């Protein structure tokens, strides 16, 4: 299948105008010694009919589809209204570039402006950017930002922070002389306040905490922020399940200086982990240190309101190595999906969505805890996921559940050796009571 739009005649006439005899002559400036003189070793071209057969064939190799899944841990199966898919698939949104020419990009620009507003409202902070790659890189950007703001070179990472987020932070700071120290959790699954107090010092740039944390437990963001501020460090609140912000108090209102994380939950498909949607909000005073693009409101000569990308002096195409971040292309189309999603559910819808997640998880937690041998690992309040401890090793339990067509949860041992035999069970609004009961029944069968 070819996507060229030139006829043979076009090619002939164009070569003539360019003044070369053949297409090959156009590449004269490439040293002959390295020219590739053989066809690339790729499969033969496919027509659309064949491509569909091939790709759908590969898709059928994903056994996942057939299963009832209780996976979460930073990627959530939530309801996506049909309007989100329809509107976000319009060519006018899919096929333009970054809106560098505002007069022909007002659609994209206004949407970014609405997205920034919605993120500020969720975060309870003054300003937000147009998006970052995802929650993990967003966390890393927040750490670098905290260093720029405070001039300090040590960050405290909650051990209850998403393991992948912690790994990515370490990868980013490795070459920058920033030290990362982990803060443990207590029996309630929350950050251990004593441990935190012990680690905070004059070198600490930020306390990085996540709520709901990786165990699904809601942290006491106010207390954590106060502790951080007590040491003149920033309180960096990570949100890996953005739906929770429909119900939980805005972290900014609880003292967080930077709120960043993953907004996949807001209308972005699971899609095996990407593309997702990083976001970052902070206080006005940190504007010049904020990474990533922002859209701002302005007017044209006739005073008509319009929107533009602004404050680009923070960015690499002007600041080059002194930019606040190297990010250029971000997640515009995912931010569009989230904007449509949030505006569709709206004020009451998003709150109700969050509440239903809490309720389904609470019901599931009670049902599972009632299964002989199953224990809740942590006592803290949870949003839409919780950790269970099992009498048998998780891999065995997981396999037996799988045999019943159920993916029961995510084993924690790999990321938390100290949590051997524990698993994270996630229950969103998409799981029905029947499905939850089926999980409980199956687990009971598996364990007895």
């Amino acid at each position, binding site marked *: 299948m070819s996507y060229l739009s030139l006829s043979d005649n076009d090619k002939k006439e164009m070569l003539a105008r360019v003044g070369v005899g053949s297409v090959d002559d156009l590449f004269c400036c490439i040293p002959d010694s390295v020219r590739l003189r053989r*066809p690339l070793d790729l499969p033969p071209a496919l027509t659309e009919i064949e491509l569909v057969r091939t790709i759908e064939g590969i898709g059928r190799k994903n056994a996942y589809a057939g299963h009832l899944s209780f996976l979460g841990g930073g990627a959530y*199966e939530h309801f996506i209204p049909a309007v989100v898919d329809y509107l976000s698939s319009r060519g006018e949104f899919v096929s333009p570039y970054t809106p560098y020419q505002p007069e022909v990009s*007002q659609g994209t620009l206004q949407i970014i402006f609405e997205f920034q507003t919605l993120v500020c*409202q969720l975060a309870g902070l003054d300003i937000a950017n147009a998006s970052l790659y995802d929650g993990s890189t967003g966390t890393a950007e927040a750490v670098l930002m905290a260093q720029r703001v405070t001039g300090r070179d040590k960050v405290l990472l909650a051990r209850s922070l998403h393991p992948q987020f912690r790994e990515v932070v370490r990868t980013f700071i490795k070459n920058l002389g920033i030290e990362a120290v982990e803060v443990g959790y207590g029996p309630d699954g929350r950050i251990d306040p004593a441990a935190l107090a012990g680690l905070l010092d004059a070198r600490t740039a930020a306390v990085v905490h996540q709520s709901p944390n990786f165990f699904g437990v809601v942290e006491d963001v106010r207390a954590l922020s106060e502790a951080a501020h007590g040491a003149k460090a920033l309180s960096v609140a990570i949100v890996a399940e953005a739906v929770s912000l429909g119900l939980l108090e805005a972290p900014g209102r609880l003292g967080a200086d930077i709120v960043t994380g993953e907004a996949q939950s807001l209308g972005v498909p*699971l899609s095996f*982990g990407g593309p997702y949607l990083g976001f970052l909000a902070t206080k006005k005073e940190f504007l010049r240190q904020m990474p990533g693009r922002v859209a701002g409101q302005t007017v044209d000569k006739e005073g008509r309101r319009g929107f533009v990308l602004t404050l680009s002096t923070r960015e690499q195409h002007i600041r080059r190595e002194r930019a606040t971040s190297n990010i250029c292309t971000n997640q515009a189309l995912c931010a569009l999906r989230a904007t449509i999603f949030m505006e569709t559910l709206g004020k009451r819808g998003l709150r109700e969505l969050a509440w239903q997640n809490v309720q389904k998880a609470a019901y599931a937690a009670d049902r599972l805890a009632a299964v002989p041998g199953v224990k809740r690992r942590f006592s803290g*309040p949870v949003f839409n996921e919780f950790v269970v401890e099992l009498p048998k090793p998780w891999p065995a339990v997981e396999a037996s559940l799988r045999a019943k067509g159920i993916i029961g949860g995510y084993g924690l041992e790999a990321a938390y050796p100290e949590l051997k035999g524990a698993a994270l069970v996630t229950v969103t*609004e998409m799981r029905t009571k029947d499905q939850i009961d089926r999980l409980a029944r199956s687990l009971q069968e598996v364990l007895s």
Partner: protein
Amino acid sequence: MIKEIREPLIFEISEAGKRAGELPALDVPEKKDALAGVALRRELEGFPEVSETEVTRHFTRLSQKNYCVDMGIYPLGSCTMKYNPKINERLSAHPAFAASHPLASEDLVQGNLEVLKRLENYLSEIAGMDAFTLHPAAGAHGELVGMMLIRAALEARGDARKHVLIPDSAHGTNPSSAHICGYAVREIKSNENGTIDLAGLEREMTDEVAALMVTNPNTLGVFESDILRITEIVHAKGGLVYMDGANMNALTGIVRPGDMGVDVLHINLHKTFSTPHGGGGPGSGPVGVKKELVPFLPVPVIGERNGRYVLELDRPGTIGRVRGHFGHFSVIVRALCYILSLGPRGVREIAEFAVLNANYIRKSLEGDYHLKYTTPSMHECVFSDKLQKEHGVTNLDIAKRLIDYGVHPPTMSFPLIVHGALMIEPTETESRRDLDLFIDAMKAIAREAKESPEVLHAAPHVTYVGRLDEVNAAKNPVLRWEKKP
């Protein structure tokens, strides 16, 4: 359709009590105290309340305020705005992929892993590299990952080094990425051909220098003809060569960076491999490496063990994780579809006709616009507004006036070595008619610049808003809507 129509912000049409996207009644017993003691918000203050009709109209009208590739030529230099095949959109959204969870165990997602592995292999063949990682989320992320790999490799040699050399024509993300990787950047000047000055390079290339970041073809659309000598010089001093592959569209099937001595490079799937730009992302910036750097690749690495795909996490040398999960998977599916559709010949034709189209435009406009560097062009050509400046007309005026002619302006913000740059990249998917549309508009504007410059200063004339006050936008930033008190 109608110029006058102005679209309010959603917040301005919100009305208490309206809604869309309703949820089923709760089917489990409600536990009112489920979050007892937790700080909850009273309400989502400021969040909109509208109906589905209003949502649909809001975004439909907003979409109509955008120009896009689906409407016409989009010759934005360095961005490779080619057509995005519709079938790839459909297949990447197929539930088998779109509904699959990233934490599912390997055996449940063999199809997904095959997608990743296949693309890694195809990109390795196209770029002439030994391995690829698909983790990077975009080009800049790819640069950072690439530089991290170089640093890790040098540290493993026990010779971290301090500096990175970058030509003055490079894209801003290059120095920025090197900086975030902990390197000090040294700029090397371009010569009169707009290419790397070999003498300068030999001077700068000390054993303190970790790497050279080269863009080839460079941002002028000029191929670095001395590339073999360049990589030789860097290697001779124990440095590594990083190539910014943003302009790979000029090379596919013609020449392979790996064969030119490049050690590490990134490719933009959202350029060369036709995945849509989406108004600014998501993109994908896979990084290719030579054998020496394979041990350092970010985890997880997709391995194959007796016929099945596995995730390798325990790799001692790895730089670690650079992003959650497996990169921009649905973007990766699109790129795979594209390569499978084109096949060996089609992939070669990308470069052949991208370069033909660019040279067709260059040749057609040579008399009308100034060409600072007359070196042969590959997939793009960079004119400047020098001739028009005599009439007080800048590249900004030219760009805005192009909008009136119904075509998208070229890139103006760089390369910084050309003042008043007009960086034009048509891509291979354009028709002769669309190319001529653009050429004729440029010629008409060249005439207007002489005869009626004021028309250009006042452009664009046909859009919903005129030129916007960007200075004020930056001076008094208004970055969000706020309820009038």
